[in-house]
């Protein structure tokens, strides 16, 4: 009942949790305030600690992610950006002894680690694209239809429609429309990654998480994916983890810089790159380390 309420009235839930700081004024060490645009945050992360067994990977992370914007997580390897990303659809549940030990992650006001949240339902709303493109060894058509079939949709015309819509949405339709029934593994690396994006948007998520989606692609394929991210921004909230600072600068609205499991700085991408508040951020974005 609490969850139903908070869905409609997020602020009511926030005032109830006295210990949690107010979302509009992030505490912690992050000096730069989160976005001040008119968009309201869809994801609200407050003071999150995360542990893999004895190893603490995230320390008191607090940040907000704006709806229908692209948010980039940057930082050197092992800084916890992928871990945080995988917290957002609870993929970390699959790892033994990996868990959020403190703090809350709310999506549209609902604590996704709460007892009333089914990770299966969460993952239908929060899709994911992986670092290594992982099309299933099925046909292109079946790759896209997979998510719908899971939900019991077997109506041919509806599947056809979704497959076309998703492939168009992922800017892949023109390249594959004549070979929908050949294996998805026959595509090139960049096409495979766009197939995975098409597969993710076929189930109509609200948020798409991208874990270094271009790290295995050549510059041309990367450019296509980045272009696609720009198109998708109109309809989805996108969180992208990237090693590539130029990529974050090119295609994100907001950027969060992580270092050693802590959020160092978060802000408007332009602001963060041109005028970083924190000397560590400046050192990283100017290429002096990382």
């Amino acid at each position, binding site marked *: 009942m609490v969850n139903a309420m908070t869905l409609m009235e997020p602020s009511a839930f926030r005032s109830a949790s006295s210990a949690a700081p107010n979302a509009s004024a992030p505490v912690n060490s992050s000096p730069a305030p989160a976005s001040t645009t008119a968009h309201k945050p869809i994801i609200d992360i407050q003071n999150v600690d995360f542990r893999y067994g004895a190893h603490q990977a995230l320390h008191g992370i607090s940040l907000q992610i704006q709806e229908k914007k692209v948010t980039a997580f940057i930082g050197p390897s092992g800084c916890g950006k992928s871990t945080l990303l995988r917290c957002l*659809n609870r*993929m970390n549940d*699959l790892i*033994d002894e990996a868990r959020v030990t403190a703090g809350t992650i709310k999506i549209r006001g609902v604590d996704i680690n709460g007892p009333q949240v089914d990770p*299966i*339902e969460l*993952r*239908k709303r929060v*899709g*994911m694209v*992986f670092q*290594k493109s*992982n*099309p*299933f*060894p099925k046909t292109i058509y079946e790759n896209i239809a*997979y*998510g719908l*079939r*899971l*939900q019991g949709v077997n109506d041919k015309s509806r599947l056809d429609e979704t497959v076309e819509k998703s492939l168009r949405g992922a800017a892949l339709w023109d390249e594959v429309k004549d070979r929908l029934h050949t*294996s998805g*593994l026959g595509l090139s690396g960049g096409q495979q990654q766009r197939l*995975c994006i098409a*597969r*993710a948007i076929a*189930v109509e998520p609200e948020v798409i998480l991208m874990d270094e989606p271009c790290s295995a692609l050549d510059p041309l394929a990367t450019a296509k994916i980045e272009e696609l991210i720009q198109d998708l921004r109109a309809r989805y909230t996108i969180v992208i983890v990237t090693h590539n600072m130029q990529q974050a600068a090119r295609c994100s609205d907001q950027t969060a810089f992580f270092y050693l499991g802590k959020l160092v700085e978060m802000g408007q991408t332009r602001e963060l790159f041109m005028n970083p508040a924190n000397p560590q951020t400046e050192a990283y974005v100017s290429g002096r380390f990382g």
Partner: protein
Amino acid sequence: MTETLPNPYAARAGAHHLWEGVVRWIFRLGTYAILASGGAVLLNIVVKGLPALVTTDAPFINTSFLFDAPESLYVFEYQGQHYELGDRAFREFRAAHGNPSIDAESYVYSAGGIFPCIVGTVLLVVGSMTIALLVGVSAAVYLNEYAKDSRRIRFVRLAIVNLAGVPSIVFGLFGFGMFVIFLGWNVSLLAGWFTLAFMVLPVVITASEESLKSVPKGFREGSLALGATRWQTIRKNVLPYALPGILTSSILGIARVAGETAPIMFTAAYVVRDKLPWEVSQWGDFFFQGVMALPYHIYVVSSKIPQNDYTERVQYGTALVFMLVVAGVAAGSIVLRNKLRNRYKW
């Protein structure tokens, strides 16, 4: 002046050249010994078994040996003629000649064929492999997909490894005590199925786990990230790709199940049975009947009856057919596996 420098790389006298050659030949001979012994066994069986299996006139296959039940052989002289007749033919012969008293020598199981044994072995293999695959694949899925690494799971794995080391006669004794006596199934197909299934279970579990492990993690993550449950993921996106590997391993299991004599001696095999397995009054009896089996038949005709020229023919004939049956079942699984493998490639 060009003085040729001494060649520093010239071969030096010493034992190590000789030693190198000796070692190499020891390894080589060891390898060839396998080939030689394997070839000798096969050749022996083929040469001695072929007379039972082929005939001189068309169709060149002794269909009676493949499709008849074992009979006693009667050897006798009648009106100056030498006869070697099976039980049925002998009685017909006597009836046709007005039932004369004939002083015939009889040799048990040396005429007729081994059809009931072939049927019994195929039934035992199919039933026990079905049980072993159902239980084994379930266990492998649990261990590999669901279970977290804990002390309890490590203990289970240890138990599996130990189970693999138990001699087959011990499985036979277990099956006898558990299924035949305690559960009261008597000597039956069902008791044999479970005994053999338990015996191959470790092989099936270990190999199934290996093939599940070889399915890339990305397939599981990709599926789960789309909102699939664990079971949906396993059923649609893991098991189909692991199946070829699981089948490969069960081919080894098939050879073992078909070949083991000890576990079925007390649990499923009859020395001789007149009725074929499907000749039962009600279908429920099907599971509670004993059967003849090829390995057990070889044992019986080789050690339980007086030996003579006529029994050798049956022994080797049965052995040859046995090998062909195992090869046939294994070939079937290989074809099936290759079909599946071509369907799913990554």
